């Protein structure tokens, strides 16, 4: 195992300034677009979709994730890194060197943007897991990557992994999304799938790493709304070993997807039905087989049901899925033009990108809207085997999430 759990334990968790023992409240605007043919779309699409939803945020967070943006390094894991200073970069690079062959390391291309003056140092790395070390253990490449993320987030003061998937990257920070995009020169990237987020938090996140989307490996999550069941959702996850230290709904949603899709191997459609369960009266009207399935699903995953208003977009290399709460308390509009599927909080965001789509519709509450990129693999988690606590630790890098032993539930 190439990471040092004692070092993680000794780490001061307060570095992660968004870490919170409390529920963090907020509203938002969001977008997701996917060309199911795999063709690439310029980043200006994502920018326009969120810029027109400017008033849904308050300038305290914006971010994007793009998939297919690094075709020349398609098989490399790409780390987008945030550093407080050069020392942090050197320390993190030392860790990266222990895990990976670094084929390219460079500062993220940025440009000066008025109003953004607190950006960390932003670097990106194209990495191949060190073959000797990888093959010495019984870990998959994905496990190996998560361990590296965990070690950096947990032990390297001032360093944070903003994204760590293949052929994708997260671009996020504190500001309005169009400012953040401008800063990152997002229009210079092309992706088959974009997700984006415009944040309206009621607290004051001080740190770029805390902006959304929430990412790990390939997956990224953006979320609008406020989950009133956060208390039991987080306790439910904790029983499986996840540690919900960020206090955000997005973190909880990410772990619930991990639990249901990766660990319990539920199909995506059913995971969505568990997160936004049909009402009992609807279940009672279903055909018998479906009733039995949905009744079990709801009774078993009841503590994981996201109750309260939400709209969520989960992005990954094979596509994206958008989902609403079960009585549609948050807006979500979908549209299709040819092979391109788009979702957003408002129709205007869609029309800012595609003025005359083939079709615009309002997805039904609790019914997932799914885009699949043809020729790309599902499931979305790759060859990952790590425990929930290791995942939580990788995401937050805090003592609380790394130190405790976890209970393995098969």
């Amino acid at each position, binding site marked *: 195992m190439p990471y040092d759990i004692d070092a993680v334990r000794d780490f001061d968790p307060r570095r992660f300034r968004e870490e919170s023992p409390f529920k963090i409240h907020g509203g938002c605007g969001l977008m997701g677009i996917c*060309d199911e043919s795999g*063709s690439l*779309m*310029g980043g*200006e*699409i994502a*920018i*326009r979709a*969120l*810029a*027109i*939803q*400017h*008033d849904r945020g308050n300038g305290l967070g914006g971010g994007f994730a793009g998939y297919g943006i690094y075709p020349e390094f398609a098989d490399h894991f790409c780390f987008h890194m945030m550093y407080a200073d050069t020392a942090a970069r050197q320390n993190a690079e030392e860790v990266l060197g222990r895990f990976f062959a670094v084929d390219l390391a460079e500062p993220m291309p940025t440009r000066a943007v008025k109003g953004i003056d607190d950006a960390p140092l932003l670097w990106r790395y194209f990495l191949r897991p060190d073959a000797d070390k990888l093959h010495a253990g019984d870990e998959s490449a994905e496990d190996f990557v998560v361990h590296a993320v965990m070690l950096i987030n947990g032990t390297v003061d001032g360093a944070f992994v903003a994204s760590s998937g293949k052929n994708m990257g997260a671009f996020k920070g504190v500001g309005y999304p*169009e400012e953040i*995009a*401008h800063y990152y020169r997002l*229009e210079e990237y092309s992706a088959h799938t974009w997700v984006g987020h415009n944040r309206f938090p009621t607290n004051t996140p001080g740190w770029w790493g805390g902006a959304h989307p929430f990412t790990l490996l390939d997956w990224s999550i953006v979320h609008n709304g406020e989950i009133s069941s956060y208390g039991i959702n987080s306790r439910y996850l904790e029983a499986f070993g996840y540690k919900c230290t960020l206090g955000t709904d997005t973190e909880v949603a990410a772990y619930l997807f991990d639990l249901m899709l990766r660990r319990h191997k539920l199909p995506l459609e059913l995971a969505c039905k568990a997160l936004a369960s049909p*009402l009992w*009266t*609807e279940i009672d*009207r279903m055909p018998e087989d479906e009733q039995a399935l949905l009744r079990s699903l709801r009774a078993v995953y009841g503590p994981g049901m996201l109750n309260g208003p939400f709209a969520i977009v989960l992005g990954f290399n094979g596509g994206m899925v958008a989902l609403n709460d079960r*009585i*549609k308390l948050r*807006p979500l*509009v979908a549209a299709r*033009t*040819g092979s*391109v599927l788009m979702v957003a909080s*408002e*129709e*205007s*965001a869609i*029309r*800012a*990108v*595609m*003025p*005359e*789509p083939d*079709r*615009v*519709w*309002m997805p*039904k*509450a609790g019914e997932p809207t799914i885009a699949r990129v043809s020729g790309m693999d599902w499931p979305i988690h790759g060859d990952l085997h790590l425990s929930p606590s290791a995942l939580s630790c990788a995401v937050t890098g805090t003592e609380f999430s790394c130190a405790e032993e976890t209970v393995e539930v098969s």
Partner: protein
Amino acid sequence: MKQVMDPTVPQVGYLKIEPPVAREGDTATIDAKNIYYRQLNEAVRRAYADGAKKVVLENVNGQRYIGNGITGKDLKIEVRGTAGNDMAMFMNGPTVEVFGNAQDGVSNTMNAGTVIVHGDAGDVLGYGMRGGRVFIKGDVGYRVGIHMKAYEGLVPAMVCGGKARDFFGEYMAGGMLVLLGMNSQFEGPLVGGYLGTGMHGGVIYVRGEVEPWQTGKEVGVFEASAEDMAELKPVLEEYCAAQGMDLAEVLSVPFTKLVPVSHRPYGKLYAYT
């Protein structure tokens, strides 16, 4: 994608600048393209102050609050594009006609006037609406006509030509709510569950039948009588005229009438201490 994307939309969202206005007779035409709602709505109010009776808004896309709070019976607004949230909120008299879809919250707490949408409308349409007409051509979202009410001479009417999702007519306290189920891209039944839940006034007409699971426990379901149809027909005539639809076709299917079974559905719920 590149070919369908509109290259003229700026990447910074709306611009906070005054929109170009062209005046011809009593009509002012405003190009709303990329204009922030505040400047846009200011231009509309200014046009009326300058004596215009009709304002045409071109290239609207998501600007909020169009027609918000405007009083004046003979004023008109024509919206070309997608109308943003809270259109015609608190509106008192004017006619707003949308050539496109409308987003969420149209006619919120509207007092008087007419809203015609030649497309779909989103969630929470007509919340607390107290008077006037709302004519939607296509589908509507969740919680439509929620807490519509009537007060003395003010009796609102809303006709939705497509299908509706759950909570249609929730808490309805007065006025008339009509659902036709004709111009729809929704799959499934013409209305979701909780139809008229909490209804304690007014009337809902549905073109076709509703099943027991669809209705809230506070409503009674009846076949519309000849008397009911006499009440409904003038509203449908107005609707068909506004939407260019054939009245005979609309009337070719029997209507179902839903009315509250009690004006105080929760009278027995409480025990006074």
